[in-house]
């Protein structure tokens, strides 16, 4: 027996079924016992769980839990940073959503955590305004986008020297300027410098 049944060509407001038959799933809503579509797309009925979903053809680009986002730091406050999102899952986003991330990390995620706490660093020394960072959306609690920077592939992906403005090279424990030799502490992504974010860096100013 088939587990799903699919139909096409649905626009918002269209009557799909009634609550006695199915549960209202994604992109549907219940109005007076009727299940109606709230999006353009095709309906998909899970016959095992009796859930009616609509697969949206044109979903708006909004960060969801698990999405990988790239953006720049526009504010630092204590142990938190505010990130302006520019790419969602490698797709350019004009929405300009802000997200927040914690600057506390476990030691396993890139050498920080206990080590920088021992050295007496505060969060604001790990990142600077203007850094391009990659993060994963871990929560949408209280309607705010929370990013996690814990994994090795997350963290700073591009920045420039705050002393002379030249490019940095990744070194153990942080970044070193190719020109003036300035060393800066960062939670650096494992692939730092592999992708060029020069344009994105310039865009914020």
């Amino acid at each position, binding site marked *: 027996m088939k587990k799903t049944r699919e139909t096409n060509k649905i626009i918002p407001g269209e*009557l799909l079924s009634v609550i006695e038959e199915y549960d209202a799933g994604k992109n549907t*809503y219940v109005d007076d016992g009727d299940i109606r579509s709230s*999006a353009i797309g095709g309906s998909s009925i899970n016959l095992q769980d009796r859930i009616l979903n609509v697969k949206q053809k*044109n979903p*708006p680009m909004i960060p969801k839990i698990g999405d990988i986002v790239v953006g720049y730091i526009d504010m630092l406050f204590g142990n938190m940073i505010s990130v302006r999102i520019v790419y969602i899952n490698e797709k350019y986003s004009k*929405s300009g959503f*802000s997200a927040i991330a914690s600057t506390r990390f476990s030691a396993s995620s890139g050498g920080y955590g206990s080590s920088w706490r021992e050295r007496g660093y505060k969060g604001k020394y790990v990142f600077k305004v203007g850094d391009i960072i990659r993060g994963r959306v871990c929560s949408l609690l*209280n309607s705010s986008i929370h990013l996690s920077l814990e994994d090795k592939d997350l963290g700073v992906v591009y920045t420039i020297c705050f002393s002379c403005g030249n490019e940095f090279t990744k070194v153990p424990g942080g970044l070193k300027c190719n020109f003036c030799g300035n060393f800066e502490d960062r939670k650096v992504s494992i692939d730092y410098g592999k992708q060029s974010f020069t344009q994105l860096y310039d865009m914020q100013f």
Partner: protein
Amino acid sequence: MYSLKELTLLDENGIRSDGRGINDLRSIKITVGVVKNADGSAFIEFGKNKIIVAVYGPREVHPKHMALPDRCVLRCRYHMSPFSTDTRKNPAPSRREVEISKVMRESLEPSLILSDYPRAVIDVFVEVLQADGGSRCAGINAASVALADAGINMRDLVSACAAGRIADNIVLDVNDLEDKEGDADMPVAYMPNLEQVTLLQLDGKLTTTQFNECLNKAITGCKAVYEIQKDALMKKYFGNEMELKEEA
């Protein structure tokens, strides 16, 4: 231009000044996705009205203090281009434009599921390129299609149409001349699937019977407009599939 002496809004055969019958709509054409940089857009030709609508969002709210923690903010801007009327219109927002922006927002709001996008904003820009009476209804029709094109979760599309009284007859879809010289004008916005009215305005006087007739006629017009809105969206999103099916 017309002379008031020669003006006949409705002749003895029930033919209106533009050749329509009392139950006829003007010709309507909607094109979806005309503004490249917008998240959703539509262009409507409603008789001689030509209106372009662009929707941006959901996006970050600026200024940030306007953001609502539990739902999205809907902002609507209705604007008439200086060249849209017979005599040049001052491009600054007039009292009428501010009012229409407000009523358009209020007519669209019930159709949107704004709680799905907390702390965000949806901006709707309605630009009238050519006006010939009923531009708020045409703007609402195009805005609703543009919102659906932007992928905003909606309860239903909003269709709008006006009805009015000229020469003691209730007529559908009043044009600019009938609006100015007629006895009453009633724009109505309606969600056809949910059978709910989201906007009802009345300029002029009607008896209870005339009011009911006028409202029913406007709703009939809205239902006809809905079919055109639906076709426009179907053409954009299922165009190829529909053509293949027709060929088969």
